[in-house]
């Protein structure tokens, strides 16, 4: 078994170990999952380092390539008669997403230190879910991809339903069903790709060699984009997100907003734009329009929220809009920005939800007007919150700035296949969200942390514990490192973006199908 398979399997094995531990030893369970997720973190570091080494050699040849170059490939047949394989590999985007996932699940399992009801099941489901997420980012067979995708969505139902707060059953059901309807669209798209190619394979790299007819791309691309758009909170299919995220327990919100929503942008880019460049050209502007609504709607929605979690969830809708906006811009800046935003928002929102969980664990309220002056009693949490907030409004020096700049530049410059005027106008409209974001972030944080302490119960609250400090510290460090030194990171994702771009520019080169 290769490195990538280990990365996928280790969370699952950890889950199995967790299941085997007796219920009474729930403290041991937390340690087991912390250890399991740190092993993943180490493996991810190894993967990143080795990827840097091996990919440097191909830096020149990739510039004109039409197919993304995969490393650490493991490929063997699975259901032979249907051409289904076990096919995992990694390119720069996969590596970036694996880094994100490893960080979030590590910090998430530390942030769940306080889960004391049915601890065993909680960690088991959380780890199964993460197995699915790693699988999606690393698999290059559509069947395998879909299998992991559904595996990542379903445990959410129980995680929110059992350990959530508020109208948790409603939120869990809404989230699960909406995401699965999205995946139904994706499935139809996959079948269409499979049969139209006539190759009897779900191999993504082989399907990429096919040039699908334009009329085919015209309906399959929106199918796939919308299907993935549901999990990427594409307007108007985002409504599961505020309810789901605010009802979910801390680690689940972190993982869901941080990583799972990125599956949407990742799938739209990796499968939608990569396999169906013509369809992307036809629909690019339309989806730019939809995601502009996303960006504005999310940020205006956040202003009105009284509950910290709803507040962050709406802000997530807005920020995930940037991801899909960048994808729909269809140029180098836009696509790079989309991937950067996936990473940056993942870390940032993970931090947000983690912190909200920690504050809620102390104050037992998430309602903004009920809180005030908390910065005096919990300076660590307040500082972390402010840094996350500043990253969210795109302050230079933090990762959000790098990502959003790319996305806006990409959107503004537009692409040769759609009306540049409209694209630029949409971008200008979308940019206004930055101002709105500044308003809600600063107002919200000021209300919670500044001013006099509103409730005497708050005076005796404690600051972050050690697991919480590690958890927030790791996330903060990532935000700052990527913000100050984005170079290596941009290089990492530029490699695989170039082939996607080349395909857009010269998709006539591909062999036409039938």
């Amino acid at each position, binding site marked *: 078994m290769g490195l990538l398979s280990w990365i996928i399997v280790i969370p699952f094995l950890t889950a199995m170990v967790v299941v085997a531990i007796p219920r009474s030893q729930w403290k041991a369970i937390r340690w087991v999952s912390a250890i399991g997720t740190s092993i993943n973190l180490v493996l991810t570091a190894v993967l990143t380092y080795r990827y840097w080494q091996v990919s440097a050699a191909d830096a020149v040849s990739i510039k004109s390539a039409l197919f993304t170059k995969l490393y650490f490939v493991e490929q063997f047949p699975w259901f032979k008669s*249907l051409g289904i394989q076990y096919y995992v590999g990694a390119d720069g985007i996969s590596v970036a997403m694996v880094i994100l996932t490893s960080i979030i699940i590590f910090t998430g399992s530390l942030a769940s230190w306080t889960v004391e009801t049915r601890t065993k099941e909680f960690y088991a489901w959380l780890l199964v879910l993460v197995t699915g997420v790693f699988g999606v980012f690393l698999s290059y067979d559509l069947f395998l991809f879909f299998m992991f995708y559904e*595996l990542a969505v379903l445990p959410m139902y129980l995680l929110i339903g*059992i350990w959530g707060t508020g109208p948790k059953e409603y939120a869990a059901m809404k989230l699960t069903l909406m995401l699965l*309807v999205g995946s*139904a669209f994706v499935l*139809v798209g996959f*079948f269409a790709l499979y049969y139209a190619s006539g190759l009897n394979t779900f191999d993504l790299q082989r399907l990429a060699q096919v040039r699908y007819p334009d009329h085919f791309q015209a309906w399959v691309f929106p199918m796939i984009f919308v299907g993935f758009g549901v999990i990427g909170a594409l307007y108007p299919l985002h409504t599961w997100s505020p309810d789901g995220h605010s009802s979910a327990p801390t680690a689940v919100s972190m993982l869901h907003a941080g990583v799972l929503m990125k599956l949407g942008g990742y799938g739209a880019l990796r499968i939608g734009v990569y396999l169906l460049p013509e369809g992307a050209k036809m629909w690019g502007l339309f989806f730019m329009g939809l995601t502009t609504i996303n960006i504005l709607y999310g940020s205006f929605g956040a202003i009105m929220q009284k509950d910290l979690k709803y507040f962050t969830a709406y802000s997530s809708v807005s920020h995930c809009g940037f991801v899909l906006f960048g994808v729909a811009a269809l140029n180098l800046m836009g696509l790079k920005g989309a991937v950067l935003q996936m990473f940056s928002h993942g870390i940032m929102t993970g931090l947000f939800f983690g912190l909200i969980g920690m504050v809620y664990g102390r104050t037992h309220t998430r309602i903004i007007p009920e809180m005030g002056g908390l910065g005096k009693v919990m300076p660590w949490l307040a500082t972390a919150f402010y840094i996350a907030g500043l990253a969210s409004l795109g302050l230079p020096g933090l990762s959000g700035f790098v990502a959003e700049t790319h996305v806006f530049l990409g959107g503004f410059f537009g692409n040769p296949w759609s009306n540049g005027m409209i694209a630029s106008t949409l971008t200008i409209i979308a940019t206004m969200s930055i101002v709105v974001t500044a308003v809600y972030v600063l107002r919200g944080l000021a209300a919670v942390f500044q001013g006099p302490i509103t409730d005497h119960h708050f005076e005796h609250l404690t600051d972050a514990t050690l697991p919480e400090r590690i958890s927030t510290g790791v996330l903060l460090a990532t935000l700052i490192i990527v913000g100050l030194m984005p170079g290596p990171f941009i290089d990492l994702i530029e490699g695989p973006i170039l082939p996607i771009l080349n395909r857009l520019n010269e998709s006539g080169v591909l062999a036409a199908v039938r």
Partner: protein
Amino acid sequence: MLMLPEIIVVLTAGVVLCLDLFLTERSRVILAPVTLLGLALGFAALLVTPQTGDLLGGRFGMDPIAWWFKVIFLIAGFVTVILSMDLLDGRAAHRMRGIGFRGEYYTILLSTIVGMMFLISARETITLYVSLETATIPLFVLTAWRRDHVQSGEAGLKYVIIGALASAFILYGLSILYGLTGQTSIVGMSAKLADVPRPAFWLAAAMLMTGVGFKLTIVPFHMWAADVYEGAPAPVTAYLSVASKAAGLAFMFQVFYRIFGSELAGWTPLIAAFAAVTMSLGNLVAIVQDNIKRFMAFSAISQAGYLILGFLGPADNGVPAMLFYMLVYILSNLAVFACIVWYSNETGRERIEEYRGLSLTNPIMALGMMIALFSLAGIPPLSGFVGKFFLFSIAAKAGYNWLVAVAAVNSTISLFYYLRIVRQMYIEPIYEGAGTLPVRYTVAATVGLLSLAVALMGVIPYFYETIHAQTITWLASLIG
């Protein structure tokens, strides 16, 4: 040798019936193990039976498809006996009145199994019809087994009437075909069909399909299912939901592939429409069900809708996909019913909301039930997902992309109602003062094995690839 499994099962039925005469009520406990032994021997005989060949001048034939169906029937029968024995032997904490007569019960159960086994091997229309009746009539009796229970009697009566109607359709269809071709052998009939006048042929085909529709619970021929499932004793419902459906599919294979061959190639739009209506109606009605057996009836109806997607494509894709799905379906459904039977035996509860807190009162059974339900809903990596994926891919290949979308959305709807049960088991609070519920090792082992099989068959390609390879050779021989 070819008929050895059937002979063993028939002999077992005879032995059980005779033993019953000489045993006291207390010692009748051994009847269930004897039945299980007979079925196990039949299964062992099946393993050594050659997969091709015929007997009785070609009236009885064996091929890989028949072999797999017999595997399905024997598994269904075996598990049903395990599920029945606690209830019949009086070990259930919650006694059900009016249930007893173990000797007769097992004999009748064995005879329906043997009828089904003959059904798929029949190569001649009279044999086909007689084995169909042998498979169905005992089911009427089993349905009405709780003699002093009004619902059970009503279910039996309803089943008799509808079953007789379906049989009449089938018999009429077969008679017309006989009149048109002058043949009773399936091969002879099929060879002459091309020259038969069309209107009469369409009439016969429509009659047969209607009859099959009743057996497979295809909408609009599904009305009997819910009442019969609800009224029958739970182990019988388990058997009905799997074996009778498998028998319907076996009959459909006989009619669709062997008799009509390529004559019905133009019927795919009709089948697509039936599939769409069946899965949608089954799913939508299942949402509002309250009683878990009724609920499973509608779930089974929608599953039949997915199943017939396999008829849309060419036989070399469709047959292995449908056989695999049938295998997956019976394993998942039996696991669910094992939990239902056990829970009703222990507590007498059969309503969905009465399952609350099961994950705390008995985590193993709850987990087994959840795995099986997720498999029915088609959640990866369980085998139900793989099975559905294959079936949907056939519809996609035949160009029915809209149907794939309908089916995929239906899968989501079905997840909604399967999650209702999961929610009761895992999320809702436990009954006040409820302690842990005991489970006998036989039932626990059955649920464990079934859910393990459900999980593994989706990941290990061996099962599907074997079915695929074997049925491909069969199809080659049929065409060549």
